C-alpha cells in the first residue's frame, strides 16, 4: 500500500468506527476507522459522501451563465467560484480587464477572504482551540464561545459581517451575487457605498490583528501540542505575484517540494495540466491531484491553502501582515510553517492582509469608475485560477462557436488537499487513538485535524462517470460473496 493506514491488510473482523457527519466543516463527509481487538488503528479514511456533478451538468450551458451558476457549488465562498469562472471566461471573450473592473473584483475577493477566514476561525474552529479538543461537547461550539468569550465571538461575527457587506456592495447580494461577468463587472461602488465601508476599515484591521495575537498566544502556550498535532511533511503549491509577493487574486503557480526545493515557479496557469494531473480512488467521490512530474498521487500529492501561501510567498505586500508573516516564519526555527494547526495562524495573517488590502482599495478612486467592461478576440478555451480561502482553485472550460460550454474541469481547493487531509487524520489516529478506548473527545481530535484545512467538501465532488466504484455482496455472516468494480475508464471487472 502506498500510504500507511489507507487500507487495512486484513479488514475482516476489524471493528468499524464512523464519524459521520464530520461537524463544523462545509459539506458532508465522514471518517471511518478500522480497529483490531486491541483498538490499534488499521485503516483511516476521510470519505466525501455527497456528489455534486457540476462539471457534467454545466455542459451545454451558455458561457456567460457559468460564473453565476458555478458559485452555487458553495454558500460559504461562492465568490471564489464566481471569480475563477469569470477569469476563465475573460479569456474566452479575449478581455483584458479595465482598472475599475479588476479592483472591484479584488475588493469582492478580499471581502470574501475576510468573511470566510473569520467564519472558519471564530465560528468553526475557535471552540476546539479555546476550550480544548476533548472539552465538554455541549459547550464546544460557537454558542459556548459567545457565552465564555463574548468579546472574541463579537469580533468574529462583525468581521464576517463586514466582509459580507463588501460582497453585497460589489456583487449585489451577500451570497450568490452576480457582479462579475465575462469581461468585467456590472457595477462599481457608489460614493455612498465607498464611504460606508471606509468607516470601519481601521476597526477591521485592529480586530484582525487581535485575532493574530490570539492564535499566536495559543500556539505559544500549547507549543508541544500545536507544533506536533497531525504534523506531516508535504509539497505545496499556490499563486504568487510576479515579484514573489502573496496575491490571492492573480499570479503564476509556484510549487515547492517538501524538502524545500523549487518544483516550478511563476508557471502560467493557463497550462496547468502540464504540471498537475488527477487520480481517483474507489472509496471517495473526490479526486486526488498530484504533480505530474512526480508520476502519481502516491508521491506527487501536495498541500494548498493559507499555510502553504504564507510559507511559499516571498513577502506579503501589506506592512502589518508581512510583519506577522516574518514572526510566523521565524517561530520555533520555522517549524510552525509545517504544523497542521499552523493553518489557523496563517489563516489569521491572511485575514489581516485582506483587511489591509480592503483599506487600500477603498482609498483608490478606480473603485468608483465607470469603465466596467472590456472585450477582445474570442477564444474557445478559458482557464481561471484564484487563491480561494481554502487554497488554489482552478476552473477550466471549453466553449464552442455557439457559445455553449462543451467541457468543464474544476479542481477545487479542498480537492488539492484531499491526500493531505487523509495524512493528517492518519497521523492523529496514530498519535491519539491507537490502542485506546475511543471517546467522543478522542474522536474529535480527528475532526480538529480536518477543520485545520477548512475543507469545503460540497465544492469538491464533480466528475460524473469517472469515479471507480466497488460493489460488494456480503453474506449474513459478513463474508464477501461477490465483488464487482468499475474502473475510471468505465469498464466493469470482477476479480
Amino acid at each position, binding site marked *: 500500500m502506498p500510504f500507511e493506514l489507507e487500507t487495512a491488510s486484513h479488514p475482516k473482523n476489524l471493528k468499524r468506527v464512523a464519524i459521520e457527519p464530520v461537524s463544523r466543516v462545509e459539506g458532508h463527509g465522514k471518517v471511518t476507522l478500522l480497529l483490531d481487538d486491541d483498538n490499534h488503528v488499521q485503516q483511516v479514511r476521510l470519505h466525501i459522501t455527497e456528489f455534486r456533478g457540476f462539471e457534467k451538468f454545466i455542459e*451545454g*450551458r*451558455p458561457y*456567460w*451563465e457559468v*460564473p*453565476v*451558476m458555478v458559485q*452555487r457549488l458553495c454558500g460559504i465562498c461562492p465568490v471564489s467560484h464566481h471569480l475563477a469562472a469569470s477569469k476563465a471566461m475573460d479569456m474566452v*471573450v479575449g478581455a483584458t480587464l479595465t482598472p475599475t473592473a479588476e479592483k472591484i473584483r479584488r475588493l469582492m475577493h478580499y471581502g470574501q477572504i475576510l468573511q470566510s477566514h473569520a467564519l472558519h476561525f471564530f465560528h468553526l474552529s475557535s471552540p476546539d482551540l479555546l476550550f480544548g479538543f476533548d472539552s465538554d461537547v455541549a459547550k464546544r461550539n460557537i454558542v459556548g464561545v459567545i457565552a465564555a468569550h463574548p468579546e472574541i465571538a463579537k469580533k468574529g461575527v462583525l468581521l464576517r459581517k463586514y466582509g459580507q457587506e463588501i460582497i453585497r456592495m460589489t*456583487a*449585489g*447580494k451577500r451570497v*450568490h*451575487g*452576480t*457582479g462579475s*461577468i*465575462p469581461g468585467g463587472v*456590472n*457595477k462599481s461602488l457608489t460614493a455612498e457605498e465607498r464611504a460606508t465601508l471606509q468607516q470601519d476599515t481601521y476597526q477591521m484591521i485592529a480586530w484582525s490583528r487581535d485575532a493574530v495575537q490570539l492564535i499566536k498566544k495559543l500556539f505559544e502556550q500549547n507549543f508541544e501540542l500545536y507544533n506536533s498535532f497531525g504534523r506531516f511533511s508535504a509539497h505545496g503549491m499556490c499563486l504568487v505575484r510576479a515579484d514573489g509577493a502573496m496575491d490571492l487574486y492573480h499570479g503564476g503557480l509556484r510549487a515547492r517540494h517538501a524538502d524545500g526545493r523549487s518544483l516550478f515557479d511563476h508557471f502560467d496557469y493557463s497550462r496547468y495540466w502540464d504540471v498537475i494531473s488527477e487520480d481517483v480512488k474507489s472509496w471517495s467521490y473526490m479526486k486526488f491531484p498530484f504533480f505530474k512530474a512526480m508520476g502519481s498521487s502516491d508521491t506527487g500529492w501536495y498541500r494548498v491553502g493559507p499555510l502553504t501561501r504564507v510559507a511559499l510567498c516571498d513577502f506579503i505586500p501589506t506592512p502589518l501582515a508581512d510583519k506577522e508573516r516574518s514572526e510566523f516564519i521565524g517561530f520555533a526555527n520555522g517549524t510552525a510553517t509545517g504544523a497542521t494547526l499552523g493553518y489557523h495562524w496563517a489563516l489569521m495573517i491572511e485575514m489581516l492582509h485582506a483587511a489591509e488590502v480592503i483599506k487600500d482599495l477603498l482609498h483608490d478612486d478606480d473603485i468608483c469608475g465607470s469603465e466596467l467592461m472590456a472585450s477582445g478576440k474570442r477564444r474557445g478555451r478559458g482557464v481561471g485560477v484564484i487563491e480561494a480561502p481554502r487554497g488554489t482553485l482552478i476552473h477550466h472550460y471549453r466553449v464552442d462557436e*455557439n*457559445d*455553449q460550454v462543451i467541457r468543464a474541469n474544476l479542481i477545487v481547493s479542498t480537492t488539492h488537499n484531499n491526500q493531505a487531509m487523509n495524512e493528517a487524520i492518519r497521523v492523529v489516529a496514530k498519535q491519539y487513538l491507537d490502542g485506546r478506548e475511543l471517546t467522543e473527545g478522542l474522536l474529535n481530535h480527528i475532526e480538529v485535524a480536518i477543520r485545520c484545512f477548512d475543507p469545503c467538501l460540497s465544492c469538491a465532488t464533480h466528475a460524473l462517470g469517472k469515479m471507480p466504484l466497488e460493489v460488494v455482496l456480503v453474506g449474513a455472516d459478513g463474508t464477501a460473496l461477490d465483488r464487482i468494480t468499475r474502473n475510471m475508464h468505465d469498464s466493469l471487472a470482477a476479480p
Partner: protein
Amino acid sequence: MSESSSFILDDQEIPFMPGQSVMQAALAAGVFIPHLCYHPEFRPHGSCKLCTVKINGRPATSCTTPAAAGMEVESNTPEILDKRRTLLQMLLVEGNHFCPSCEKSGFCMLQALGYELGVVAPRFSLLYPARPVDASHPDVLLDFNRCILCELCIRASTEVDGKFVFALSGRGIKKHLVVNAESGKLADTNFSLADKAAQVCPVGVILPKRKGFAVPIGQRRFDAAPISAHVDEFKPVAPGERP
C-alpha cells in the same frame, strides 16, 4: 359614473370602454390581475389561466371576458389566489426553472408572480423534462427549459414579424415549443434579434446572447417593487396600435 360603463371588482368600481376585457379595464384602472400569456399589444389568448376571476360567481379568464355593466368580479380572494398559486406551482415543475442561475431572474414574470403570490416552496414533483438548448443562432439563445407555452412568441412572429418562426408541437403534457425549420434550429430561420418575437417572452426562453447578468442586482425590473406595482406597464394600448 353611470351604471352602463362600470363593473365591480373586489368592491372597487371599475370603468370600462366598449370592447375592453375585464383584464384591460382593471389594468387601465390601476388594478393588477396576475397574468402570463396576456400582453397589451396582442389579442388575448386565455391559455395560462392565471388571470382567472369569478364573474357573478363563475370562474372565467379575465383577459378573454368582455367587460359588461354591473358585473361582480372577484379577483383578490383567498380562494382565487390559492388557485393561481397552484397554477404557478404546476408551471414551475413542468419546466426546468432554475432561478439561481437564470439570467432572466429579476426580469421574469413567472418568478415575479411567484414572489407576488407567495410561492415559497415546491409543491408538486418536478418533471425534469429533457429540453436541449438551441444556441445555433448567432445572436439569440433559445432555452426551452423555461417555456410556459404562452405562445406570445408565436403570436408576435406571426402577427407582427410575419415570419412564422415558432409553433407548438405535441399534445397534452408533451406539448412543446418548436422552431419552424427543417432542421428545427433557429439558425435555419430568418429570425432576427430585432423581431418583435425576440422581445415578448415573459420568462427566459428567448435571450439575446452575451448580455446575461449585465444589469446589477437592485436595478432589475422587479427588484425594487413587486410586479403588481408595475401595473402601468401592462395598461392596454390604443385599439389602433394593436395588431
